[in-house]
């Protein structure tokens, strides 16, 4: 993929059946930032926390969450974890077939000089909104993104997940 083009689709998936996980492999390092946009459709009532890992690695993650569920505002945090916890309290639906919007930003993902970060926002009228920020204590360029949940078959058919590349140069 040629560098210099911005907000360009890298990969896209439209789920044709219920899934427990999604995966983006062999992500080009030709961009500066990544944006993952998920038109989420729930296949369960689990309201899952999205467990995000990169490069198949399961250590060195921390996440801070700020959320509002329509009545309560609170913030939580987890460190030394095996994944980033996205939509930990709010943002994925607890109603089957309900929809949500999830956007994850991975700034400077191809840099190899310092640790990688994530900024994620999740929004659902079913469970509320959440703002998540996290760090992966690893300086490797991100070439793979995996998302799953502690429960199974939460991601519904019709969900559209697209990974875009943003180029600064």
């Amino acid at each position: 993929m040629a560098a210099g083009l911005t907000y360009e689709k890298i990969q896209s998936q439209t789920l044709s059946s219920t899934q427990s996980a999604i995966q983006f492999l062999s992500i080009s390092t030709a961009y500066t930032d990544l944006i993952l946009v998920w038109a989420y459709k729930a296949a369960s009532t689990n309201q899952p926390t999205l467990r995000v890992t990169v490069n198949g690695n399961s250590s060195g993650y921390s996440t801070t969450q700020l959320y509002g569920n329509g009545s309560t505002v609170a913030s939580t945090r987890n460190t030394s974890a095996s994944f980033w916890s996205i939509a930990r309290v709010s943002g994925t639906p607890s109603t089957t077939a309900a929809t949500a919007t999830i956007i994850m930003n991975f700034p400077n993902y191809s840099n190899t000089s310092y640790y990688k970060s994530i900024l994620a926002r999740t929004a659902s009228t079913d469970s509320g909104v959440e703002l998540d920020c996290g760090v992966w204590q690893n300086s490797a360029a991100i070439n793979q993104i995996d998302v799953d949940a502690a429960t199974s078959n939460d991601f519904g058919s019709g969900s559209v997940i697209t990974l875009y590349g943003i180029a600064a140069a």
Partner: protein
Amino acid sequence: MPTTFVPINKSIVGSGGTASIDFTSIPQTYTDLLLLVSAREETATSAVCFMKFNNATANRSEKYLQNNGGASPISSSTSVLQFIMCQPTDSASTFGSAVIYIPNYTSNQHKAVMTDSVSENNGATAFMRMIGGLWADTSAINQITLTADTGDIAQYSTAYLYGISNA
């Protein structure tokens, strides 16, 4: 050439303000829509901007997280789609900002909307609101209408609509 993040339409409010900003005949050729709004309410003191799709007022809802710089953020819900903009009591010549992302707007699913909006104005009060919205309708979105809760949207307010494609 990239096929994504394409300007679809824009609205720049002229002298005297306007009762509404209306994007009609939105093309169905993209995957997602992004609406960037800079807005101020001209006459009222409760500055929110309402949003309708396809001119429908039913089946709208949202939950939001809001704070004004104080120690007590709130979370609440509404039965409309709305976001923050600046109001006449805010500092002059300031406009609220809103980023509205509408994924999968042509699908036959209910339309989930993510909105971040702020009214920072270097004055006594400013708000920020993060919103999860829903239009519980399976129609493709072909029209977006913005109106002030009361009064008009002020001169110099702008709205830019972009199409984002994963094709």
